[in-house]
């Protein structure tokens, strides 16, 4: 989770804004399973499971380690990565006790920067910026407007995780 401070001047507005870019897995758990207790239930995918997931979803798992939590209601919370156009996207998937999708949240997503990460002028604005460091509003560029990005990679990733649920979690809880 990145944190930085934005400074601005405007009437009736606070004089400093700390920006939290997206949520941590813990914050996402609280948002996606409000009031519930989640306990870690990590899994390791076997070769057979990886092939079965690939066959069922058309997508190959990126990692053998499956980051899974079980909610007190019987729901599942999975944190995983998908490969976007240029970067990794970290997503959190909440499933109810029957394996139906409750919600999907993106936890880290650098694709907004797209291939401009190749642009040295773009990279320069982030150089040396670390958690807690101050950025002047007006110099900070996070929001982007341009041709609409496709979230197809995330849709594909969710389909893969639903296959993963069916193959690895559903009958083994």
């Amino acid at each position, binding site marked *: 989770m990145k944190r930085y*401070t*934005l400074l*601005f001047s*405007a*009437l*009736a*507005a*606070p*004089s*400093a*804004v*700390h*920006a*939290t*870019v*997206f*949520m941590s897995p813990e914050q996402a758990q609280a*948002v996606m399973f409000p009031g519930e207790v989640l306990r870690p239930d990590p899994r390791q995918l076997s070769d057979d499971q990886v092939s079965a997931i690939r066959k069922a979803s058309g997508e190959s798992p990126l990692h053998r380690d499956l980051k899974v939590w079980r909610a007190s209601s019987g729901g599942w919370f999975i944190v995983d990565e998908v490969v976007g156009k240029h970067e990794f996207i970290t*997503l959190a998937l909440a499933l109810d006790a029957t394996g139906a999708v409750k*919600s*999907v*949240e*993106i936890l880290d*997503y650098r*694709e*907004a*920067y*797209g*291939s*401009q990460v*190749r*642009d040295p*002028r*773009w990279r*320069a*604005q982030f150089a040396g910026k670390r958690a807690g460091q101050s950025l002047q*509003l*007006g*110099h*900070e*560029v*996070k*929001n*982007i*407007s*341009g*041709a*609409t*990005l*496709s*979230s*197809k990679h*995330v*849709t594909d990733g*969710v389909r893969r995780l639903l296959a993963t649920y069916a193959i690895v979690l559903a009958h083994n809880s």
Partner: protein
Amino acid sequence: MRSSLPTTVDLVTRCRPLLGTFVEITTPDGHGEAVNAAFDMIAHIHARMSFHEPASDLAAIRNALPGERIAVDQETVEVLRTALALHEATNGLFDIAVGRKLVRRGFLPRGDIGPLRQFDGTAADITIEDDKHVSLKRRMLVDLGGIAKGYAVDRAVEVIARQGVPFGLVNAGGDLRAFGPIEWNIGLRDADDLVRSSITIRHCAMASSANLGNRRRLRGSQHTPHIGRNGQPVLAEQRTTVMAEWCVIADAMTKVAMVDPDLADTILSEFKGHILRETLSLGTA
């Protein structure tokens, strides 16, 4: 009144895959319920106005026969009202009955839609019956890809602001709207995917379109998802960005601005809007 002690606010950005893109909502921390409600509204609009979903209002419209009373969501009627007004204001250039061409040219899935020649209506053939019903004079394939994202952004902003959130930004894959008294710096991704410039906005909406990276070759000619007069594909070499009070207008008018900037500016002047021509180069701020 000036205070020497700065007040500090934590901003939180949340992001969900909706409307076929990444929807980000940024607000001060502590407004999770309002943001959840805004995402719910966007998800509702997504479900009603998806071209792909068999249970969407667009599927109901394409399955309807001429004269049939079609029950649709109130939100869908609102979008259609705006789309029809823009169809008229642009002399037919902005036409949500563009689905047939987009399917034919491979930008939308054919699915089980059937022979395309039967869908020969234009937006002028849509009649709004009441807040929940429409009918068609001729059949058509409606696609709201050029307007629904902007509408969803506006509705999300309304939901958040109504719950007392003092300021925020909703960005649906580049169609965005800021509200409240603070300024936001927005990077502009050019048609070649590079961000070279930025603009600072406050309490307004903006949207951008480009198609350099979204082209298909069909029978020897280039096509894009943007269609101009007489069905001609719009081959834009540059990004087009439009500012307006509402995101639904900004979103829809990018497509008009790509073809006819003068017409777009004339219409936009009624919506506190304009085509963006001056930007700030990155690194010179």
